[in-house]
């Protein structure tokens, strides 16, 4: 972390360059919708979005806003609220390149990135069209047991990992609790940007009960305060998802026009900061 890690939301978004390989968290695991809005506001383009391992509203909006060139994910789902219309439309119109994956493959490739491995093997996959369509994956014969084919995945090292967390401290440590994929993302990524509900005046490492759930400051490059920063997605143990807002979104996004109207309104709202 540099000394100026704590910054404004707009600065954080401005530091995500066009074309970046951006890793984002799954719903209810720390989705920074606040930063997503700032990214759309600044008109980011050409992202390679890596969903860890799936995404919902965040990917759907970034795709709809034309910010995404490549989408690497195991699924895009808005769950019971309905289809991800903008995602489906972008695929049909060939506006994005899709790298369909499977959850453990995203996790394993990020863990390879975390460990500085060039690749990692993974079971499963063989005989699936997921593998058949991933020209970047390989199948080799297990060198320890001939006649045992196994898939190899190249490591994922995102340029930037982006997520939302309940708490950071003044040293730049971020609390994630049990949401360990956020730690893996931060380790694997070149830089990590985080929005948080609040900044604690107490150092997380001064409390032996908090330290095990922390991402150390050395991995964290930017932190912006964004209260309710996951909204309308939820942040477990803090707030649930906003069902009405999500239903409204899915309804609006059925058409491109409807989505544009949604965007105008959403971008018009001021970001909630302190």
């Amino acid at each position, binding site marked *: 972390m540099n000394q100026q890690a704590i910054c404004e939301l707009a600065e954080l978004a401005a530091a995500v360059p066009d074309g970046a390989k951006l890793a984002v968290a799954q719903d*209810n695991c720390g989705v920074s919708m606040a930063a997503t809005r700032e990214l759309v506001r600044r008109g980011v383009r050409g992202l390679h979005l890596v969903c860890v391992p*799936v995404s919902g509203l965040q990917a759907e909006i970034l795709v709809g806003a034309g910010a995404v060139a490549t989408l690497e994910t195991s699924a895009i789902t808005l769950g019971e609220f309905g289809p991800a219309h903008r995602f489906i439309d972008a695929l*049909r119109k060939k506006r994005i390149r899709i790298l369909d994956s499977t959850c453990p493959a995203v996790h394993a490739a990020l*863990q390879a990135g975390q460990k500085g491995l060039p690749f990692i093997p993974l*079971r499963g*996959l063989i*005989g*699936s069209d997921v593998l058949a369509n991933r020209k970047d994956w390989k199948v080799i014969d297990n060198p320890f047991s001939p006649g045992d084919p196994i898939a190899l995945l190249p490591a994922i090292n995102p340029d930037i990992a982006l997520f939302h967390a309940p708490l950071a401290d003044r040293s730049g440590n971020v609390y994630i609790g049990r949401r360990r994929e*956020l730690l893996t993302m931060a380790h694997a990524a070149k830089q990590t940007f985080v929005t948080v509900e609040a900044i604690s005046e107490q150092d997380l490492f001064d409390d032996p009960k908090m330290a095990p759930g922390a991402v150390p400051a050395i991995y964290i490059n930017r932190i912006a305060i964004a209260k309710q920063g996951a909204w309308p997605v939820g942040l477990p143990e803090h707030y649930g998802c906003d069902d009405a807002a999500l239903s409204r979104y899915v309804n609006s996004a059925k058409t491109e026009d409807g989505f544009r109207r949604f965007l105008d309104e959403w971008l018009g709202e001021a970001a909630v900061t302190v």
Partner: protein
Amino acid sequence: MSIPYSRTELLVAVIARLLEGCRHVTVGASSPIPGAAALLQKDLSGGAMRVTILGSNRYNAYTNGGVETFDMAAQGRIDAFFLGGGQIDGQGNINLVGTGSYPESEVRWPGSFGSAYVYYLVPKVILFREEHTRRVLVPKVDFISSPGVSAPGVYRPGGPYGLLTGLAWFSFDKQKRHFRLETVHPGHTVEEIRDQTGFEFDCPAQVPLTPAPEPEILALIRGRIRKQIAETYPRFASTFAN
């Protein structure tokens, strides 16, 4: 004399029976009926069976993030899991991606999730899809999110145990690579199943009816289990008996 029950209640009771003897069952996202069934069997086992429900806070004791489910599957610590599919074919192949040509897809679904992995590794994968139509149960899936069977030599301790729909329960024969109709749910017939199924399946001369839930099972479902599943699926729990 039997007590009236809903289709949801029947499916919960059927799945619970299928889970008998499991030490640990994991239920994926957006799976309220398998979740309720797992909690029911856990209750019936006197707590000997463990249940992990992804998306639950109470029934999820994982501490290594989202990867832990998959690592556990690979460790052999998950005995049963549930998968669905926009399309399922007679060889047990499942498609969670879309219809028509890939990647543009005529109909696009969310994506493969963890299917291209857990289907290979969990010994008892129960395919579960309420809709039983030729749209879903097809001769051949358009995209193989995960295959039902694998070539010799491919590491595959897991695979399909059977297919449960709103109309019937099929077992899966890994040697013969196809399904066998085991029971038809009350109110439905073998002819109806044939009409609505797009793939060939084995069918014995006499197909028994799926047993109705016993009164004490129904009482459990409507009582304790409904409360327990409400933590993860509140809306589902409120429409349980419909």
